[in-house]
């Protein structure tokens, strides 16, 4: 039996492409000072966000982002059928505790930094499948909670290697519906977990780039499209290193993306001024860049069709300490502004 809504091997083609009705973004002070500062809805001025701990602050950002996106669509939380959310912390506590407050039926996700795109792909399936009217996909990350979980205490005087990336403090939420005004999700290409043997947890761009490239190429093959069919191809958080590797790998396969390929991790910070080394990372990186900057450009009509690839380094401190390498994943979603 064939799957009527699938094209090629792993690409979903939605029959009634779900509409992105609204997006919302909450970011930390550093992201607010960055080049995309104007595109975010809320910039908090203190990374504690009035809470006692960074974990609670991250959770609150996620709650605020979801509440805001629901308000923007002139709905109430009880109008939302499902909340799909995740984050980077162990047992995805930000998402679980935010869902506790919000009271929306909840599916927790973990796709590391690819969670936003994983959520958008699944939300589109729920809507196009006829299971839901309103679905919110959301995720969050926080520099300080990620540092203390994955690396060193924040006051530890260590030197970051130049390949290191800066975890974005923020939360993004996307509200989708079967009808409405806004860009639509037409396709999604689900990622494969690829491991190229990178063991350095401070070099996630190199670990994730092949997975992103794999998804992009499979997407092109499945849809018989190429880079020229997109105004923009944008990866989640490969950063400077991963972006350059991905460009090279795609070039080797005869896909020239030198004119229309960018990365959220590069866009979100000012490389010269903000001391963020290879760029931004974290669930919120692709989420807030999409919710703010990209959504703005889509609504303006500046971009008609983009291929967003959420990239995740499936990193675990336990696995890394046991000598395992770092697998990567990339989920591709096509967002199109029709008419």
């Amino acid at each position, binding site marked *: 039996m064939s799957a009527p809504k699938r094209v090629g091997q792993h690409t979903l083609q939605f029959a009634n492409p779900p509409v992105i009705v609204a997006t919302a973004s909450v970011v930390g002070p550093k992201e607010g000072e960055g080049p995309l500062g104007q595109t975010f809805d809320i910039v908090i001025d203190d990374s504690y966000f009035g809470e006692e701990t960074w974990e609670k602050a991250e959770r609150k950002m996620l709650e605020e982002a979801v509440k805001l996106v629901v308000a923007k669509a002139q709905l109430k939380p009880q109008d939302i059928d499902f909340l799909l959310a995740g984050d980077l912390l162990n047992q995805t506590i930000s998402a679980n505790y935010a869902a506790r407050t919000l009271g929306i039926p909840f599916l927790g996700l973990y796709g590391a930094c690819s969670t936003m795109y994983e959520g958008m792909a699944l939300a589109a399936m729920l809507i196009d499948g006829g299971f839901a009217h309103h679905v919110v996909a959301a995720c969050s990350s926080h520099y300080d909670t990620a540092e203390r979980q994955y690396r*060193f205490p*924040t*006051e*530890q*005087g260590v030197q970051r290697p*130049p390949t290191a990336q800066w975890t974005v403090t923020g939360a993004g939420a996307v509200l989708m519906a079967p009808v409405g005004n806004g860009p639509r999700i037409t396709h999604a290409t689900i990622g494969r977990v690829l491991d*190229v043997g*990178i063991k350095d947890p401070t070099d996630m761009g190199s670990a994730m780039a092949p997975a992103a490239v794999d998804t992009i190429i499979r997407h092109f093959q499945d849809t018989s499209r190429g880079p020229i069919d997109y105004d923009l191809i944008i990866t989640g958080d490969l950063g400077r*290193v991963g972006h350059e590797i991905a460009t090279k790998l795609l070039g080797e396969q005869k896909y020239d993306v030198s004119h229309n390929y960018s990365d959220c991790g590069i866009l979100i910070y000012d490389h010269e001024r903000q001391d963020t080394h290879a760029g931004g990372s974290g669930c919120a990186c692709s989420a807030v860049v999409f919710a703010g900057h990209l959504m703005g450009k889509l609504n303006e009509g500046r971009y008609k069709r983009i291929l967003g690839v959420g990239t995740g380094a499936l990193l675990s401190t336990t696995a890394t300490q046991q000598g395992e390498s770092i697998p990567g994943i990339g989920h591709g979603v096509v967002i199109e502004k029709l008419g």
Partner: protein
Amino acid sequence: MADSKQPGPPKKPLTLAEQVMQQKQTYDQQAYQRLADGVKPRHNVLVNALNAFWVGGSIAALAQIITLIFIATGANPQDASTAATIIMVFLGAFMTGLGIYDEIGKVAGAGSIIPITGFANSIVAPAMEYKREGFVFGVAARMFTIAGPVLVYGFVVSVLIGLIAYFLK
């Protein structure tokens, strides 16, 4: 290479096909590592070494000045050096608390990790960080997460050297 599959005991050596696959995988990983290495930005070793030298040197010089002051005020050299060490540990901890030491570390690298002020930093930083998990499972349990290995292997080496010294005498 289907014909290379041989029947054999459960712990058989890899078949030829498996060996080829394994070698190809290693080769691909090496090729990718080379590609990635070509792209990665590098530390400027000379600048880093100079920064480590002058910051590490300054910390050591400061400790020496403090030692000399104690000696000048009449302490014997051993007491003076102990007192200077205590003061340096205090300064490292104090600057960690003020949020300055990690900024120094960003520039100086090993220059501010190796001196005893860096040791203080590595204990105070996790202690501050984990205060929110409580004083028992947070501060006390996590205080030595970074300094712990240094202490353990420091003790091991000192015991070994002690034994060597004992038998050589």
